């Protein structure tokens, strides 16, 4: 006689909902077997506890998800989800229980299997996962940023959710105002999806019903803190997994229009109940990452996947702009050989063989890194930025589109137009017909007078050897690459004359490549205030002292605190926060 199979779920997920008709379906889809990876061998259940919605969710509506799902109804009538959470805990059957205090939070695809695996590493585990928010900025600032459910829907469409749930990282932010990956993953005050063995839930006594402010106040923080301070427990943080908060008006995150007012109320309640300081958990923690590719996937989500056509197009465009196909380089060399032979100087060709290998390495190395080897030897490519800067620019434009950062793309200092062509190329590849690409340049080369930073000799040499490129030449290159159109706008003239009155309303990306102090300062002064929150500022020539001096002076003058990021040995960038 065989024993009856054990049908006890290994894991119960408790999800609290209140007026989440838009958000709950996505949350439950993200918890379903078709979305969660690595759960094939695990029985698990999901319990939704509705906390008094006018039209509560019905389990039958989610029958297609393949979930072992129950919907319970908490009728205590409080605005706090604590009673509902404790109701879900009492009804749970799993050996492990994961509580999600906010049913508007979608899960990453490995959240459940990683929680189970991590909990096996220690006899008394507290499994913590990061809490992210969809959108570029914290959602409590929606009244400033214009973030809305419609913007969020477009964001999710832009990553084709739910095709690859890890792409949620591309369109989300950490809860800090200055997010970093370290801060996202370090255990702090709370986790929206915290998993404990049933015995530990019993030991900690569940959520404290004393927390009765809207959204539960600091009840989740309190639960995490009390759990983490039980004797002999180990906090284990999940790397590369998270929950992602959808925008809605019923959670603690948005219950108070004024976030600081909300914090003050929560703090008062916490002190009343605990009579001690409200602070994050500061204990050594383990960091658990189940699969090697997960973190990589958060930063390079397309690796290993089929390459979409727009990406193939942009890869080819990048090669063309950098002239890495080398056809033109070879043509230049053949032309040079032809000239020398015609002039009867084949002896020079013979002499050059000895040093050619060395010079070739220098030239290739410099061009790959976007450096100018000699002011009389400009590269034959359409840009001299090099691969790293060009790829950085491409990622910035893609981020602008992915995160729906409003505004046009502006380049000040064009040369042959390669960088602006990359901006235009990304817009074309992604089918964006709303934004303009502005090209500001003298089309006569660098200015000869530059006040205290006058570098006339160098300027004359550069301009005479190809730095001055006419507008007609740039237009022809745009046309040749099929990028010319109404969205490409030229601003010919010196920056101090053209930029202050340029008809540009908002800027999502501002790229400065003016070399000099005055060119850089003029462009920042005229345009920085038009860069929107979340917009990028790229300084191509920061390694040049006059340019760096201008940038530093401007940042100090305007009190700009956003940290600069080094792109390569020449360029820096930062992202505007407010």
């Amino acid at each position, binding site marked *: 006689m065989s024993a009856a199979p054990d049908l006890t779920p290994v894991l119960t997920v408790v999800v609290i909902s209140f007026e989440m008709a838009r958000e709950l379906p996505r949350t439950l889809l993200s918890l379903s077997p078709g979305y969660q990876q690595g759960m094939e061998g695990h029985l698990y259940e999901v319990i939704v506890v509705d906390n008094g919605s006018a039209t509560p969710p019905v389990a039958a509506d989610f029958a297609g998800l393949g979930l072992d799902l129950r919907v319970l109804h908490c009728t205590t009538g409080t605005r706090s989800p604590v009673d509902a959470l404790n109701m879900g805990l009492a009804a749970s059957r799993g050996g492990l229980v994961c509580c999600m205090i906010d049913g508007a939070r979608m899960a990453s695809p490995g959240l459940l299997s990683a929680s189970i695996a991590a909990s096996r590493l220690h006899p008394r585990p507290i499994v913590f996962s990061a809490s992210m928010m969809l959108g570029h900025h914290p959602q409590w600032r929606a009244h400033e940023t214009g973030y809305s459910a419609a913007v969020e829907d477009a964001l999710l469409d832009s990553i084709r959710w739910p095709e690859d749930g890890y792409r949620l990282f591309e369109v989300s932010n950490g809860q800090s105002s200055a997010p970093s990956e370290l801060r996202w993953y370090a255990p702090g005050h709370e986790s929206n999806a915290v998993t404990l063995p049933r015995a530990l839930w019993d030991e900690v006594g569940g959520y404290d019903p004393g927390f009765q402010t809207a959204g539960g106040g600091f009840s989740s923080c309190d639960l995490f803190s009390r759990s983490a301070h039980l004797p002999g427990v180990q906090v284990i943080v999940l790397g590369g997994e998270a929950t992602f908060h959808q925008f809605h008006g019923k959670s603690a995150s948005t219950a108070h229009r004024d976030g*600081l007012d909300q*914090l003050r109320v929560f*703090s008062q309640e916490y002190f009343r109940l605990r009579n*001690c300081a*409200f602070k994050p958990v500061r204990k050594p923690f383990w960091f658990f990452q189940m699969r090697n590719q997960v973190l990589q996937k958060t930063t390079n989500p397309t690796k290993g996947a089929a390459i979409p056509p727009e990406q193939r197009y942009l890869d080819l465009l990048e090669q063309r702009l950098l002239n890495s196909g080398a056809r033109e380089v070879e043509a230049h060399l053949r032309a040079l050989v032809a000239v020398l032979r015609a002039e009867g100087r084949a002896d020079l060709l013979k002499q050059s063989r000895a040093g050619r290998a060395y010079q070739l390495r220098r030239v290739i190395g410099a061009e790959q890194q976007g450096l100018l080897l000699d002011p009389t030897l400009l590269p034959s490519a359409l840009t001299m930025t090099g691969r790293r800067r060009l790829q950085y620019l491409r990622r910035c434009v893609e981020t602008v589109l992915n995160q729906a950062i409003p505004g046009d793309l502006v380049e000040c200092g064009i040369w042959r137009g390669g960088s602006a062509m990359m901006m235009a190329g990304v817009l074309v590849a992604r089918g964006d017909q709303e934004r303009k690409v502005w090209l500001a340049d003298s089309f006569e080369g660098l200015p000869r007078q530059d006040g205290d930073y006058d570098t006339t000799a160098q300027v004359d040499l550069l301009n005479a050897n190809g730095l001055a490129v006419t507008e007609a030449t740039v237009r022809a290159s745009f046309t040749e690459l099929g990028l010319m159109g109404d969205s490409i706008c030229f601003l010919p003239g010196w920056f101090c004359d053209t930029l202050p009155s340029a008809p540009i309303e908002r800027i999502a990306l501002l790229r400065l490549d003016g070399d000099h102090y005055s060119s850089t300062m003029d462009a920042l002064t005229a345009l920085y205030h038009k860069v929107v929150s979340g917009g990028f500022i790229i300084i191509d020539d920061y390694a040049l002292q006059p340019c760096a001096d201008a940038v530093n002076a401007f940042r100090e003058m305007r009190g700009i605190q956003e940290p600069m990021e080094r792109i390569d040995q020449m360029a820096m960038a930062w992202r505007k926060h407010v």
Partner: protein
Amino acid sequence: MKTFDAAQVQSWFTRYLADFVDLPESAVTLDTTFAKLGFDSVDSVIISGAFEEAFDVEVDATLFLRNDDLRSLIEDLRASGLIA
């Protein structure tokens, strides 16, 4: 208006702030700057909320932001009449 004794307020803040940053109370003196303790604007609001709850009063949201240390904060409260 309620008024409190300066020593009582100082004692509460010393205990709370030391707890807040997990340091012994001896590490929090009248002249220890809040910046040195690592407080940011969010912390300031949380501490203000706890103070209001503990003393059953209402204080200006900028109380912490406009004072650099406990000494100036207590003087600020004295000027506003909360400390006798």
